[in-house]
């Protein structure tokens, strides 16, 4: 009698290798991601190395001695906007009108990328924007220095009233520079046409750049109520966690087996008649009616000849005559059933089998 449940020490000993390997994998993977992996982030995020990110532009600016700081909150943006170029990369997230007005109160140059109407009103009042042109490679078509030096660039989105550069998608209004769309600044498109030059010319006008790219909406739009999450009482969230705990405990309770699964050496199960059934199906699949008919006839004859008092070697005529005499049936028909052609169809085969049965019964009963 021995215990087969491992002790804690044995368990640790057998699992430590696996745990160690898992730990090593996690550490190595983390290191690799930290050193060389892609950085996820939103569109036009200066940390993001995804196609929609703006890491490439930020690195180019830094190489030119420009200090690029990314900020994600109004507080940081307001604090750092002073004395630097404020790039509003994600205007759609700036929905808090009060904070937006506060930001507008700080003086300084700004670059607005695809500005929304509230942002436009706050940071570049008086500019009329009309939406809807698609993003295509456009010629500069104006005498703005940044545009002329850069040449063709991928632009679209908003058009601004009175502007002529890139068919109105780039405008300079006082301190503010407006760009209809930001695609030309992304990692994916930066290397094409004059995109990089235009982006550098627009964003590299100052020693410092404050890159305002929030990752989620900041504030609540004016006139909007509480969001659905805020309407649910806190109890429900914790109640869900507690229910989850109950489900987990139920799973652990029901999932624990009382003892090991017992294995059993199983016997071979093969029915002896399977070979016969298989041969029958083979006959049918190949439509071997001749062989089937022969087998049925031979078997019937083998059973009838002893009853008729004939030897097993008796000839056809002898047998047919004996059966005809015994049953009073027509000899020709009996000959056809016992020695005739092979049946031509499945129905004929079934009929033949029944005829053989009839003759056999008559011989037996007479």
């Amino acid at each position, binding site marked *: *009698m*021995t*215990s*087969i*449940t491992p*002790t804690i020490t044995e368990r640790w000993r057998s699992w430590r290798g696996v745990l160690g390997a898992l730990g090593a994998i996690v550490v190595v993977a983390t290191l690799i991601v930290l050193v060389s992996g892609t950085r996820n982030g939103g569109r036009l995020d200066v940390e993001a190395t995804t196609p929609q990110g703006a890491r490439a532009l930020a690195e180019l600016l830094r190489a030119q001695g420009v200090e690029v700081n990314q900020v994600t909150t109004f507080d940081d943006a307001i604090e750092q906007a002073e004395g630097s170029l404020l790039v509003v990369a994600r205007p759609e997230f700036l929905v808090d009108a009060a904070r937006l007005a506060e930001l507008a109160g700080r003086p300084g140059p700004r670059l607005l990328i695809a500005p929304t109407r509230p942002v436009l009103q706050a940071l570049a009042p008086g500019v009329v924007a009309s939406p809807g042109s698609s993003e295509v490679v456009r010629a500069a078509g104006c005498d703005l220095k940044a545009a002329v030096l850069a040449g063709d660039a991928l632009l679209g989105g908003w058009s601004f009233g009175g502007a002529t550069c890139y068919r109105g998608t780039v405008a300079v209004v006082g301190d503010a520079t407006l760009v209809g769309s930001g695609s030309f600044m992304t990692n994916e498109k930066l290397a094409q046409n004059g995109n990089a030059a235009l982006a550098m010319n627009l964003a590299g006008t100052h020693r410092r750049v404050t890159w305002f790219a929030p990752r989620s909406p900041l504030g609540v739009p004016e006139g909007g109520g509480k969001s659905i999450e805020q309407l649910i009482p*806190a*109890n429900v*969230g*914790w*109640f869900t*966690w*507690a*229910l989850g*705990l*109950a489900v*987990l*405990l*139920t799973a*652990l*309770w029901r999932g*624990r087996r*009382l*003892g*090991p699964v*017992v*294995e*059993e050496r199983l*016997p*071979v199960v*093969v*029915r*002896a*008649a*399977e*070979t*016969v*059934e298989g*041969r*029958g*199906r*083979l*006959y*049918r699949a190949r439509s*071997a009616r001749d*062989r*089937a*008919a022969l*087998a*049925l006839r*031979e*078997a019937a004859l*083998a059973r009838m000849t002893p009853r008729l008092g004939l030897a097993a070697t008796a000839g056809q005529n002898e047998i047919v005559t004996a059966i005809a005499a015994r049953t009073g049936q027509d000899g020709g028909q009996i000959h056809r059933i016992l020695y005739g052609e092979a049946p031509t169809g*499945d*129905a004929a*085969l*079934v009929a033949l*089998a*029944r005829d053989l*049965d009839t003759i056999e019964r008559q011989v037996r009963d007479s």
Partner: protein
Amino acid sequence: MALTGRAALLAVAGALIVLAAPAPALAFWLVVAVIVLAVVVDLALAGSVRALRFERSDDQRVRLGETAEITLLVANPGRRRVRGLLRDAWPPSTRPAPREHDLDVPAGERRRVTTTLRPLRRGDFTAAAVTVRALGPLGVAARQGSHRVDGRVRVLPPFLSRRHLPAKLARLRAIEGLNPVQIRGQGTEFDSLREYVVGDDVRSIDWRATARRADVVVRTWRPERDRRVLIVLDTGRTSAGRVGVDPASGDPSGWPRLDWGMDAALLLAALCARAGDRVDFLAYDRTIRAQVAGGGRGDLLPGLVTAMAPLEPELVEADAHGMVAAVLARAKRRCLVVVLTDLNATALDEGLLPVLPQLASRHLVLLAAVADPRVAALAAGRDGAAEVFEAAAAERQQVERRQVTARLRRHGVEVVDALPGDLASALADAYLNLKAAGRL
């Protein structure tokens, strides 16, 4: 360790409290703490499973179809009471019942636990493990552990044909002449001389003895005794085929030919032992699987069933050469060799038929095979084309079987071909006929 339903119930109750509590976060963590505390207390205070000591009754032998009671003695040398569940795990086909026992062993005491096995199959079965789940005082968590406690049950062939034994013994006694009047012709071995009584066959009068005495004296005869019978069981691939209906479980997929053969062999052996013949047993496919040599009268049957119990059909073609060699090595004197196999035309053509003359020249060979009732049923099928094709195949097989039987008989081999339920009886009758005819 293991949790119980109470732990889950606690969590559900806790969830309701969290829903109503003014400070849900605090309530949630309180609930978690309570559950963890309860689990820790239970695990700490539950009786030790590892320390338990087990003792099992000796290995058991049971006929297929009967039940075996396995008793397990659980001793608790620890300081805490062990209360909870116990499972004595056996292979599923032994159908252990109950699956779980309630266990309550106070410290320092012992308890007996009885598991009933109702095996479905023949063979050796070993106990897998004994698992105990010891609940803590709160009933929220339990310690669980398994022990290996050796135990074995050998399930013997059921010997269903023993119900035929009294009838066959009565016939044997008639042949042996234990009835008052002895008649000539029953047996060939000279027994004794006695006075003539009216009704005795005049051909049995011993004239020389009559001349020496005043009375007319007749010779009496009795069947031969102390003959040797060698039963050979084919355990090759053909023995795996299932025929008839499994009498142990009622499984309609049938019982292997091997088991029907064993049943017949047991009846024959019992009969031979009563008739005073020596019985040897051999199970063979490509090698010797089991053998019983020259069992005496008393311990023959127990020895046979014990040797047969672990036999399983092997999925290999039987080696007829080796089998004949093994038989010849064992049987120096002329004896009756009973081969329990299948009348499969192809297998016999390539296997036994070429080497049979070698065996038949020195011994009397009796070949016994199980006929498949399903083939007869298939041969009668006339419902549609598919059935008629199958009927043709069945007829073909029956014809082949008859042909191979005829060929065997030409070699001087006795053949018994009977339906599963009749095989044992038919084989016993064949033996008695041979004995009565003095051909042993």
